[in-house]
């Protein structure tokens, strides 16, 4: 299949399950999206919604008990689902890079930082040690590590959390990948450090023209990073669109609930609108709309039939029966609820 010019990666109806003693856990149940060249696509969802599994399927690093039940991942002229492991290493790392959540556990504690960065360069690019070192020093100063010459010979425990994440980014970028997958890269970091790392990723994206898949559950981080957003729930994308469309004009009750459950800065004391209940058990995926049992706007049809994607605008789609022409009109609870900037504007 030939991809359109502006699309780097296309995930088409991907379904992934895990074999467990209790039965098949259906982690991803038909996810489709395009990653456009040079954009940041944020995938938002709770833990267990299948966002990490999707990204691992793209990298070809699913756990041993995972089964790809269907779907395709198109990259260049390849379908990554069919690529054999012995060929995959040409793509993994060198064309699609990945950053993980915990910077400490993604680095080898008994290997010097320099060796960890140059490892891939020497093995894959067949560089000499000196060349690789020069390249590594360049990378280290690019990701903002002071005194790279000295730091090159230190171990991961010498570095703080933020610095470790910078090292991980340097390793991911060593092979000049085209696509960067960031799996909650800032969840383990402090807010001030988090802001620095996010700025760094944005800067590198501009400089290198990376296309980024950014996975997180923090809507604040999403607002900072995203060009487009896909909201995932129970193994499916329930809504996707441009960043502004999702934050200011979202249509799916789950997106409403997510935004509502965060306290806005001007919100006075009182109750938060929490989402009742817990996410469904993916051993037995619910019939119909998976969010229906926790949804106060649920209709009878939500429990019986899965909603298709309804188009809201050219770039904005949502899978909820509320958008069906026959559905009752429901006013979005997010409407009129402004976060910082708009609230400040209306005060003036």
């Amino acid at each position, binding site marked *: 299949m030939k991809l359109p010019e502006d699309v780097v990666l296309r995930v088409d109806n991907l379904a992934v399950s895990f074999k467990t003693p209790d039965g098949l856990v259906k982690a991803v149940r038909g996810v489709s999206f395009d990653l456009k060249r040079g954009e940041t696509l944020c995938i938002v969802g709770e833990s267990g919604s299948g966002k990490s599994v999707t990204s691992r399927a793209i990298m070809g690093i699913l756990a041993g008990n995972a089964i790809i039940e269907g779907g395709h991942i198109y990259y260049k002229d390849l379908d990554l689902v069919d690529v054999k492991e012995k060929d995959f290493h040409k793509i993994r790392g060198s064309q699609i890079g990945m950053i993980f959540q915990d910077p400490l556990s993604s680095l080898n504690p008994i290997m010097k930082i320099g060796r960890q960065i140059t490892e891939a360069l020497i093995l894959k690019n067949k560089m000499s040690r000196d060349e690789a070192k020069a390249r590594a020093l360049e990378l280290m100063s690019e990701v903002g590590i002071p005194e790279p010459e000295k730091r090159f010979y230190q171990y991961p425990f010498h570095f703080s959390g933020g610095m470790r994440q910078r090292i991980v980014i340097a390793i991911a970028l060593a092979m000049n990948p085209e696509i960067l997958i960031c799996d909650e890269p800032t969840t383990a970091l402090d807010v*001030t450090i988090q*802001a620095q790392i996010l700025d760094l990723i944005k800067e590198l994206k501009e400089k290198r023209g990376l296309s980024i898949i950014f996975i997180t559950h923090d809507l604040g981080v999403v607002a900072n990073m995203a060009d487009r957003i896909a909201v995932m729930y129970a193994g499916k994308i329930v809504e996707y669109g441009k960043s502004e469309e999702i934050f200011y004009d979202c249509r799916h009750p789950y997106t409403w609930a997510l935004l509502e459950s965060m306290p806005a800065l001007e919100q006075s004391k009182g109750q938060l609108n929490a989402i009742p209940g817990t996410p469904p058990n993916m051993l037995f995926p619910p019939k119909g709309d998976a969010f229906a049992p926790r949804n106060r706007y649920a209709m009878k049809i939500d429990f019986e039939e899965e909603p298709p994607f309804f188009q809201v605008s050219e770039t904005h789609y949502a899978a909820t029966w509320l958008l069906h022409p026959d559905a009752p009109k429901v006013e979005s609870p997010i409407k009129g609820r402004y976060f910082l900037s708009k609230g400040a504007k209306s005060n003036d």
Partner: protein
Amino acid sequence: MTNANEKILQLKNVRLYFSSGFGKRKVVVKAVHNISFDVYKGEVFGLVGESGCGKTTTGRAIIKLYNLTDGQIYFKGKLISEGNRGKNLEIKRLRQEIKEKIKETNSQISELKGEGVKSNEEKLAVEIGEAQQELKSFIAEKKAQISELKKQKALAKRANVRDPELMSKMQMIFQDPIDSLNPRMTVKEIISEGLKINGIRDKEFIDKEVNRALELVGLLPDHANRYPHEFSGGQRQRIGIARALIVNPELIIADEPISALDVSIQAQIINLLNDLRKKFGLTILFIAHNLSVVKFFCDRIAVMYYGRIVEIATSDELFKHPLHPYTKALLSAVPMPDPDYEKTRRRITYNPSLRKFTVDKPKMVEIYPGHFVYASEEEVKAYRKELNLE
């Protein structure tokens, strides 16, 4: 709601140092460095700061999981723990003074003796006697001071002994709902442990109380015989809250109770804590790093940085007029779910080395009623100006 007159918890010049190694290799980590604050009855007091700034250590020191290095903690007006570093230093200093005085007197006497060859012996004896008398009274005075300090140390030792009745009025909720529950105990055993420790053996009463606590936190009585692994993260945190509630506490120390939970569950736990607080008039010390939740939930907030409290204010005041540069940096780094705001956001970075305090030593200053900031005199002037302008 808050009773401004009744201080339920008072921290006075609390220090907590951890040391490791001996001799030249000895490393002292000053985790908490001279902090003081009061928590009033019925309020939610937030403690924020980056990881490693000492906020968890403070919480753990209050509930006596650590022994204080220095300072005092009062709970419900009673001294519950006291550190002796200050007294030990004072005793050391006094002993040093005595030693120096003895040396001084000895050299004085030997000098007199050298001169004594010329003058008559009677006068010499009187002078030596005087010097010795002075030394004696000096030593007696200092020794009295030392024994007074030693008495105080003994008192502190007595205060540091755990008073079970008082301490059961203070409970803690931990960060990680998985690690903080024993996987080999049933929910009932976990929750009732507090009662059993307090000497209650009546099985019927325990059953009744466990069911009551479970219902309070929104779980069902038949959850009591299950094990923690059968529950989701949010439910486990509810079990942790039930365990804290069973002994009818007045103060709850919540150490990042929601940071390990999903966004949708976080709101549930915050609502639950809010309900419980209203129902029982609980006081909560809320330790967290998520500032938007802290602003929503807390009445007053203390910002910590490297073991020190740099600013204390009511939550509205702190967000409206942050004064300390670190608070400003922290607030500017909070991501907001609003793309327009995020695009225009300006991040402030905090560089402590820019602030030099060699001459103008900083201290806690009340700049505005109820708004404390850790600043030097020069900075206080600047802050006053900043506030007046607005």
